[in-house]
């Protein structure tokens, strides 16, 4: 996002990076966002005035696989961060691309899931379960998509950059975001999919 300048002796008061502090604050704030969406779902999941119930349409084997995929993308992401700390640009680009592809696989799975559910009779306005399920998982999917776009853009910017490791902090920041999206899915997977109504 910005070029490195080391002109000033004025180091931050805590010795920490502004961007990183900001990112953690943002993630703390996001907890409340997803908390609200998850709570809404939890409250309404048993209210099926019409259409299928959660257990009738959930495809646990498939969702397990897609959880696994997202988990592995966290691994590749952390490898990218690790490479960035070693100023290994090739590794960074490689792992970022891998992460983005795994993320895309996950989103592809979600598109599949939504289409399948829709065909089985669960629309956005079908029941409270439908409204809250699509809202929650849709928000998560949008977060993943934003993450993928950031990853790809970072790869593109990184390729143009001539200074190796210049984007290492950006890699770390996107990494934090990506892991956060992953841990939200860890919660969704358990609370939404595995615990039956």
């Amino acid at each position, binding site marked *: 996002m910005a070029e490195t300048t080391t002109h000033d002796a004025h180091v931050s008061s805590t010795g*920490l990076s502004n961007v990183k502090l900001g990112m953690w604050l943002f993630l*703390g704030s996001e907890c409340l966002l997803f908390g609200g969406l998850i709570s809404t779902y939890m409250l309404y999941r048993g209210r099926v005035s019409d259409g299928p119930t959660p257990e009738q349409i959930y495809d646990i084997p498939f969702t397990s696989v897609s959880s696994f995929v997202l988990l592995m993308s966290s691994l590749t992401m952390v490898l990218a961060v690790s490479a960035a700390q070693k100023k290994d640009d090739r590794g960074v680009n490689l792992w970022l691309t891998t992460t983005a592809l795994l993320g895309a696989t996950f989103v592809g799975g979600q598109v599949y899931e939504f289409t399948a559910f829709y065909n089985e009779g669960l629309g956005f306005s079908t029941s409270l379960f439908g409204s809250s399920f699509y809202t929650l998982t849709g928000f998560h999917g949008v977060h993943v998509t934003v993450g993928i776009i950031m990853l790809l853009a970072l790869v593109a910017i990184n390729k143009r950059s001539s200074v190796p490791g210049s984007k290492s902090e950006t890699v770390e920041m996107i990494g934090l975001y990506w*892991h956060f999206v992953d841990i939200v899915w860890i919660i969704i997977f358990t609370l939404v999919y595995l615990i039956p109504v």
Partner: protein
Amino acid sequence: MTTETIEGTHLETEQEHGMSTRGYIVVALILAAITALEVSTYYVDFGPLFLPSLIVMMVVKFVMVVSFFMHLRFDNKIFSWLFYSGLLLAVGVYVAALSTFHFFLR
């Protein structure tokens, strides 16, 4: 002072935080194993342990990702404070709100 641009100083001071590649892979494997265990609850009847075990596994996975992949274990404590205060606030507030809907009690 140019802001948004302090990463240079940061990296020099905290070069060696985090784990080795092998460490990350081990963590990921543990996470995968827990996920497999979670999924097994769908096929095998855990009886009364079902709910608590799922919750515990979820929390363990959560904490592992946060601590190792997101480096909270190795990083400055202030990040943990910021993140966990948001998290605990969310849990507290929403659990309280849900309980007013008789979520936890019949």
